[in-house]
């Protein structure tokens, strides 16, 4: 016990004395948490649209003003030549073309139907998809309005119409940040825990001080605890700053569920991730090696955790990877507890899985950590 205290004292002194590491541990994750949610936003605005209007009628005017008034589109070009509009797409000045054919109004009034043409620049798939969908929706609305104008009120009931009314639960304004902030916070805590602990242990190997430790009567578990406890504490501190300051004050996200539950899960999650860091360190001899391995794992963690893309839409093999990723569970729990107010029973399965991860990584790491070779 006394040995552990000496180890901890040494570790904290070293961490707080390291002028290059300290900002990396504290400032970097928080800056990321402030900046990333502002950028990682799937709600696409400012889609540049070129409209080719061959009709120039009140009806086409009405449609165009409906599109530009929606707030999603910026009218990049307006003309009557499709080729000129296509030129805009080629020059990346425009994302979509809407072509309104000549006789749009006439056909609509006479034949009660008309076709519009939308061409989408699909290089940026997300933007193209969403842009196309938004535009479609606007046109549908327009269609409904036009129809309503024409319907004789007396005959109102004869046309059956299904209308869908939807309501967004748990995030009523579909604020993307509510969805991203808890996830990004989870990821940042992961980075600090796994990365820093791995690097710290390998540094002792690289400098050679671990030899000196290994000839002392320090027990394996004491050394490991001496390394993991400081980073566990740092992980909790960063999480708290992120939760109470950045997420609450800056983004106004107040967890609906129990904060204690979040901390309970975090405590186990950190043990699992520190175990992973320790494991990486036992397989690396230099900080460079550890960094490369940790970077590789972090990329997989980040991209296959459901942070940016829904897991349900991944191919089956990728879903298996995603559910072998501890971060997936933490992000789910964060979102469930913070946005939905899930309770202990709702996350009990996640908790069990995480305890499994913690035991798995730590056992493996401890078995692979040798005081002698």
């Amino acid at each position, binding site marked *: 016990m*006394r*040995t552990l*205290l*000496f*180890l901890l*004292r*040494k570790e904290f*002194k*070293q961490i707080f*004395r*390291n002028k290059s590491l300290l900002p990396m541990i504290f400032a970097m994750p928080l800056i990321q948490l402030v900046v990333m949610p502002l950028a990682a936003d799937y709600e696409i605005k400012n889609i540049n649209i070129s409209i080719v209007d061959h009709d120039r009628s009140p009806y086409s005017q009405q449609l165009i003003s409906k599109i530009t008034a929606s707030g999603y589109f910026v009218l990049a070009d307006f003309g009557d030549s499709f080729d000129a509009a296509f030129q805009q797409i080629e020059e990346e000045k425009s994302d979509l073309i809407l072509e309104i054919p000549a006789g749009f109004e006439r056909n609509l009034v006479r034949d009660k139907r008309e076709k519009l043409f939308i061409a989408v620049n699909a290089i940026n798939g997300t933007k193209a998809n969403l842009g196309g969908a938004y535009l479609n929706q606007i046109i549908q609305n327009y269609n409904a309005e036009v129809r309503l104008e024409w319907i004789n009120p007396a005959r109102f009931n004869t046309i059956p119409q299904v209308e869908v009314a939807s309501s967004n639960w748990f995030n009523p304004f579909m604020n993307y940040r509510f969805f991203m902030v808890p996830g990004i916070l989870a990821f940042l805590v992961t980075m600090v825990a796994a990365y820093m602990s791995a690097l710290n242990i390998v540094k002792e190997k690289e*400098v*050679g*001080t671990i*030899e*000196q*430790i*290994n*000839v*002392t*009567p*320090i*027990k394996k578990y004491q050394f490991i605890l001496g390394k993991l406890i400081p980073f566990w504490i740092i992980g909790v501190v960063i999480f708290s700053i992120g939760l109470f300051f950045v997420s609450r004050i800056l983004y106004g996200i107040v967890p609906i569920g129990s904060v204690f539950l979040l901390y309970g899960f975090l405590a186990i999650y950190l043990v699992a991730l520190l175990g992973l860091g320790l494991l990486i360190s036992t397989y690396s001899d230099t900080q460079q090696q550890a960094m490369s391995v940790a970077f590789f794992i972090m990329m997989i963690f980040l991209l296959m955790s459901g942070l940016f893309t829904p897991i349900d839409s991944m191919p089956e093999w990728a879903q298996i990877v995603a559910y072998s990723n501890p971060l997936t569970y933490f992000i789910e729990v964060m979102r469930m507890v913070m946005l939905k107010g899930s309770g202990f029973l709702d996350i009990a399965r996640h908790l069990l899985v995480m305890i499994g991860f913690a035991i798995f990584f730590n056992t493996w790491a401890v078995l692979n950590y040798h*005081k*002698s*070779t």
Partner: protein
Amino acid sequence: MKNVVIKTDKLTKKFGDFIATDAITFEVYEGEIFGFLGANGAGKTTAMRMLCGLSIPTSGGATIAGFDIYKEAEKIKANIGYMSQKFSLYEDLTVIENIRFFGGVYGLSDKEIKEKSDDLIDLLGLKEESKKLVGSLPLGWKQKLAFSVAIIHDPKIVFLDEPTGGVDPVTRRQFWDLIYEASNRGITIFVTTHYMDEAEYCNRISMMVDGEMKALDTPTNLKKTYNAASMDEVFFELARGAKRQAD
């Protein structure tokens, strides 16, 4: 009858096909300064690492301070000190913090740590520097500090792996004063070196060539046996047959 503190029996370490240390058998007596000589790559460091419990032997055995290196490695660790070739105190801790840390992990009480660190700082003349980071000290001082820290818990044996490499002659002399002082306190010194003048300071010397122990005797007897005027000549005579390329 002299007390034996290190006793090895055909101690061997192989790395794949390469036999780093080939069945060495020897004894070291309590309180002596035992010089462990050999060219680079002769297997000295490997042998020393096995004796310290840092490396597990491929075959053979050894007892250190009466404890078996296989079964009682942790008990050995409480009874030995080790100073590796690579400087291995914490450069980002101060002199006093390093002393306290190692004193603490060797289980000294707060009072002992306090006394020890005062004594050490006095002895090494580091009063002004005690609050400086170890990384900022000159090499010679670092080495003296590392040695003092390695024996902070008054071990039975201290293993020194080329402790004076790269150190100026004056500091080297001071370093040996420290070694003698420790030896007078009854600590057995097990030291490797490439300086033949240092070899003369040892009570007994062993010579490693290609992983084998080729000679073991007092410096005087060795010179007599090989009909040499100095330890330098003894070294050349023995190391000449080496097949291994020095690194």
